[in-house]
């Protein structure tokens, strides 16, 4: 039991950290809902994973997320619609199909996650995937930010915005997929949005922003999982509540500093 808790905490800290880091870009890009909606796209994949007896149904979710990221990116280029619009159109369909084909006993776990069944392999996978996602995102972080500031400026310095966006979407899919293990498809959007939003309240430079976002993500997951173990309640909602508590604290700090970004 203590072993399961340790594995859960390792997963929570690593996924919270990487989701906070990647989410910091998503919030700046005004794609906050993309991470949330994208996570629902995993549901039909998880259902197929269950139906086809994959070693872990999450592998089906991974596959669906990756394919969806490429489809969303391609549709964005062809139609010039925002990612948020395209994902918004896709996720309700995915959710509907997912709920229809997911066997009922597994539906709750897919929707809300279940950290009590994790094994060492999940913990190792979460750490490795998080580290890889963070390192790859680090390589494109400045390029993505420059593209947000000015597309022309970024392109004139040799940044390929389309390619950078595709890599970023794939990395978000990766982190969202492992986040599903902790909080489920319905709540995983929280991990990429709320820690970054909280960090934004306290930051006037990028370094502080992404460091705080990553730390807030880790603290939310860590404390939520710990509370869940203590109270025997599901971890997902408690992780979300811990994150919201951090967010509200940062709002109070910002308010106290007379609505100016902290540190200015």
């Amino acid at each position, binding site marked *: 039991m203590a072993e399961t808790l340790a594995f859960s905490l390792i997963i929570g800290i690593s996924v919270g950290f990487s989701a906070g880091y990647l989410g910091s870009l998503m919030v700046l890009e005004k794609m906050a809902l993309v991470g949330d909606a994208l996570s629902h796209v995993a549901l039909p994949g998880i259902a197929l994973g269950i139906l086809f007896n994959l070693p872990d149904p999450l592998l089906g979710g991974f596959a669906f997320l990756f394919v969806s990221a490429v489809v969303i990116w391609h549709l964005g280029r062809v139609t010039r619609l925002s990612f948020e619009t395209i994902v918004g159109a896709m996720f309700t369909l995915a959710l509907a199909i997912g709920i229809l084909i997911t066997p009922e006993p597994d539906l709750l776990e897919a929707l809300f996650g279940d950290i009590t069944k994790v094994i060492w392999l999940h913990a190792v996978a979460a750490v490795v995937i998080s580290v890889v996602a963070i390192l790859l995102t680090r390589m494109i972080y400045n390029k993505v930010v420059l593209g947000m500031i000015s597309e*022309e*400026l970024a392109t004139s310095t040799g940044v390929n915005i389309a390619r950078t966006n595709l890599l970023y979407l794939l990395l978000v899919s990766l982190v969202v997929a492992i986040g599903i293990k902790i909080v489920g498809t319905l709540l995983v959007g929280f991990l990429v949005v709320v820690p970054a939003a909280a960090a*934004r309240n306290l930051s*006037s*430079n990028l370094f*502080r922003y992404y460091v705080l976002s990553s730390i807030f993500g880790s603290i939310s997951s860590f404390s939520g999982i710990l509370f869940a173990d203590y109270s025997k309640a599901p971890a997902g909602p408690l992780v979300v509540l811990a994150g919201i508590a951090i967010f509200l604290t940062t709002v109070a700090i910002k308010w106290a500093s007379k609505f100016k*970004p902290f540190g200015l």
Partner: protein
Amino acid sequence: MENRNENILEVSNLSVQLANQTILDNISFELKKGATLAIVGPNGAGKTMFFRTLLNLVPYTGKIVWVDKVKIGYVPQRLSASDIPISVEEFLSFKNANNTENSLKSVGLDSKSILNRSLGVLSGGQLQRVLIAWAIIDKPNVLLFDEPTTGVDLDSEEAIYRMLNELKRENEITVLLISHDLHIVRHYSDQVLALNRCVTFFGKSESIMDEKVQRIVYGEPVCLHPQT
């Protein structure tokens, strides 16, 4: 006839079509090294698209030949930095982390007081200077300015152009500048290229104060056809 060896840019029969619409039509001109060329024309004339084409950001037909070994610094019309928590130092470091203080000094900004400030809280004049610092940080020999003083008060505008002239003199930079302000065009450029999809006027900057020329530039387009 200008000496071909002194040219830094030769554009011939340049056309851009997007979504079956002609945005730029058969543009030809030559620009001397070290000159300042002002690009004028009504809204929607294709001025910004012309810059995007020079930066190789859009597909085109015709020829753009940068004669010298060229390094281009670009200052865009506007930035979307107000929602992004990024300091001046971080922004400049995206391009060159080793020369931030020198480039800020070149544009008349005190690096100590501005490096840690957020881009989003700078005044219009400060932001434009930071953008120019960004453009010159890796020592370009060509600068493209797309309405560099939009949203800047008159005093700051004059100061920015004076600083630009000094930079130009010190570093032998060729400048291409989009502006709606004919006073600026008259005083801070050597030549004028008027666009209205095609070239409607190309000549010395003094000519822009001539009413006849202004009617040509801002009236119904009458295209100049390049000699072939």
